[in-house]
């Protein structure tokens, strides 16, 4: 276990240059940071959000002309899995309900709970297990102006500043307004918040906050929230029916053009079925598993943008889908940690980034996007990355410097979780460097919503990472768990209210909008065999696929 002999040989070069680098650091002679022009140059050439290559304009649909990552445009410009006429849809109808929630993460489950509380019968359908979502992977915490020295006013300012003032103001107001309500709601549901002995919430700063408002539940806040929400949804099983391994493949509409539920694919029996619903909520999360430009990701297995695709075909425009958050230091080795985050604190404590020759190639405290770009340049353009036995590339993050700079034991004391994460695989990061490469972390954009979580399509709502606007072009730590709970709750409540006011019946359910979308694609000259939503990423090796002589893939899924 641990590094291979070949890698240990390469680490000798890092060790050889370390004394000189430490001496320079002690003298305050940091590696020269890039000038603003230099930053822009490396961003333009190497950052996935800036590079012209790998991005293109979408040529159909409500956001026609907008430029997005090609991998995402590909799924937007793909064909539907199938087109079914109204009579067939009636035959396929297996469920009828008030509110259909698509997605079983934090946003979807919050929506289901609030819809139920407001009088609706709910079906929550998810393509994996209930709770399989990025929600469980959020570690840091959840923001909320709960303290006397803070208020929603300051939370609002922090969110806008973090998003470079590009955010949709009404959504930011909703987020900061509801945050303390959500904290209290989670407390009442029995979430084990970190508290002081008298019950007062323990709060910390996060990047870009002017007041301490980061609430946590150990270092597994997202998992703790998901466990409680799922448990509570199960307590309400009379009103909330959960359908697992059921993937929504298209939104359906009624004769009046209102959203009327969805067409589903049972991933195990391969049957299609219809859920008719007066109101539909899309809470399907983000697109990390599209692996934009080949990046590894911190996201869970199901993050393939399905809800964005079907919402887009139903007529909902996209917001901020040009913007993706990459974290500069994702793990590149060992394989079982690949893509996982290494906190910025490691660089904050003074660890250099070093190439295969043992040379430092970037100032370690550049902004996230610049740092990422410089690592990509070193590995791909200059060819000075380190190749792992599983065929990945990365640069050294020289963590042993920390103990030498800050005193023995600092690594273990300041980075306990990281230390354990690596020592489990025989790598002592206080003695040997870590291998890192940028990783795809968060989809800043999504479906366009109002502050009620309603979309422009009647009866269709969206919440969480699948929606866009609240974070603008950059999300602050602690606002994703807040986003899913605030807008999940709003979506559930709005959907239930919509159901109460609903008149008429769901007649003539159809997929006409999908047919029109296909026609628009034809008109734009798009000829394609690609099918979306992907449902799952395809990780089958090319060597295997070449021999799967009778297998074909629909999206990422074998069929």
């Amino acid at each position: 276990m641990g590094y291979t002999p070949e890698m240990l040989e390469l680490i000798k070069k890092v060790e050889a240059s370390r004394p000189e680098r430490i001496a320079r650091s002690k003298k305050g002679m940091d590696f020269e940071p890039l000038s603003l022009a230099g930053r822009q140059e490396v961003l333009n050439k190497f950052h996935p959000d800036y590079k012209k290559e790998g991005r293109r304009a979408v040529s159909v649909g409500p956001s026609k002309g907008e430029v997005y990552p090609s991998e995402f445009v590909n799924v937007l410009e793909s064909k539907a899995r199938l087109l079914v006429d109204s009579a067939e849809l009636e035959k396929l109808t297996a469920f009828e309900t008030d509110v259909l929630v698509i997605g079983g993460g934090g946003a979807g489950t919050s929506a289901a709970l609030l819809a139920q509380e407001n009088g609706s019968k709910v079906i929550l359908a998810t393509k994996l297990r209930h709770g399989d979502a990025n929600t469980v992977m959020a570690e840091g915490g959840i923001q909320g102006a709960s303290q006397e020295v803070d208020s929603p006013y300051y939370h609002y300012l922090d969110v806008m500043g973090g998003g470079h003032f590009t955010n949709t103001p009404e959504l930011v107001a909703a987020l900061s307004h509801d945050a303390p309500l959500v904290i209290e709601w989670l407390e009442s549901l029995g979430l084990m918040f970190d508290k002081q002995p008298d019950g007062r919430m323990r709060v910390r700063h996060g990047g870009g906050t002017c007041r301490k408002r980061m609430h946590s539940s150990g270092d597994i806040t997202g998992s703790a929230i998901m466990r409680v929400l799922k448990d509570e949804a199960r307590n309400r099983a009379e009103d909330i029916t959960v359908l697992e391994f059921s993937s929504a493949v298209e939104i359906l509409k009624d004769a009046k053009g209102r959203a009327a539920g969805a067409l589903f694919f049972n991933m195990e029996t391969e049957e299609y079925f219809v859920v008719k619903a007066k109101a539909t909520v899309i809470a399907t999360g983000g697109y990390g598993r599209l692996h934009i430009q080949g990046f590894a990701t911190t996201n869970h297995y199901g993050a393939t943008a399905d809800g964005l695709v079907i919402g887009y075909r139903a007529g909902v425009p996209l917001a901020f889908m040009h913007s993706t958050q990459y974290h500069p230091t994702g793990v590149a080795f060992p394989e079982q940690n690949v893509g996982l985050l290494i906190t910025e604190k490691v660089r904050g404590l003074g660890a250099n980034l070093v190439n295969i020759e043992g040379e430092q190639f970037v100032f370690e405290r550049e902004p996230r996007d610049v740092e990422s770009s410089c690592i990509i340049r070193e590995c791909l353009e200059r060819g000075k990355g380190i190749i792992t036995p599983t065929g990945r590339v990365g640069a050294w993050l020289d963590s042993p410097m920390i103990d030498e700079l800050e005193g023995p034991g600092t690594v273990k004391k300041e980075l306990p979780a990281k230390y354990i994460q690596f020592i489990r695989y025989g790598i002592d990061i206080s003695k040997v460097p870590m291998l890192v490469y940028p990783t795809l972390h968060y989809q800043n954009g999504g479906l366009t919503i109002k502050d009620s979580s309603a979309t422009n399509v009647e009866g269709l709502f969206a919440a969480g990472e699948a929606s866009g606007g609240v974070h603008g072009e950059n999300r602050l730590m602690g606002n994703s768990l807040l986003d899913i709970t605030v807008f999940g709750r709003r979506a559930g409540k709005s959907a239930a209210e919509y159901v109460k006011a609903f008149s008429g019946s769901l007649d003539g359910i159809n997929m006409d909008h999908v047919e029109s979308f296909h026609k628009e694609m034809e008109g734009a000259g798009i000829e394609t065999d690609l099918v979306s939503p992907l449902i799952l990423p395809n990780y089958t090796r090319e060597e295997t696929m070449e021999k799967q002589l009778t297998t074909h893939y629909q999206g990422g899924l074998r069929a």
Partner: protein
Amino acid sequence: MSEAQKKEIKVATGDRAILPEGTRLVPIFIMGKRYLVPETMTIQKSLEYAGYQFIRSCGCRGGICGACATVYRILGDYHLNFCLACQTVVQENMYLTQVPFFPANRTPYKLEELDASAETIMKLYPEVMKCVACNTCTKSCPMDIEVMEYVNAAMRGDIAKVARLSFDCIQCGLCSSRCPAQIQHFHLAQLCRRLHAKYQVPRAEHLQPRVADINAGKYDEMLKNLVDNDEESLRKLYVEREMEPQNSEGWEPQDKSFL
């Protein structure tokens, strides 16, 4: 540029596994069937390398969701081992299978109507008293949780201890799959965590006035003004906002008009 540098480097992108030059292959046995996979690869990725596509038994791929619970033995060794496929590297001659689901009944309840007492546990999960103290649950936990310890605490009605000891539970179900007393540990633990947080830990009293103020509309006008602000004045407000120091014991902002 040397020839070696000119040669295109084959690297893995995304999460798709490749076989890099010079990598050693080791045999593993997936449900008894032999496959050769690269050493240092996780069980999860080695299954994909072998040609499997997951529908079940795969979730966060980062060790926190509990979808990929796996059981294995090494050829020639009688010990039965338990792990998460995404967190465990293959070993030569590993015989493995995954446990994508294990039946365990969960007793529905209304949190508002319960109290944090031994009686609640006995009523909802009476089978907990059948524990034979074999410690198999603890040995089968991929998160190294002291499962039997918290079962013992539950028998005594020590709900706080159950909550504390079970905090890292990912609800994979391996404990309940192995229990000779048929205890449904992870549901019991979830109940105790919620009871503990709701009834044993003091409530955050400082939240109540804030919630009341928000519901009374105290911040509506302030937020509306911010929404209506132009970017320039917003930037000014942003830059001028007072920063709470890291060590903020007794700190108060000078401007309290927006609190």
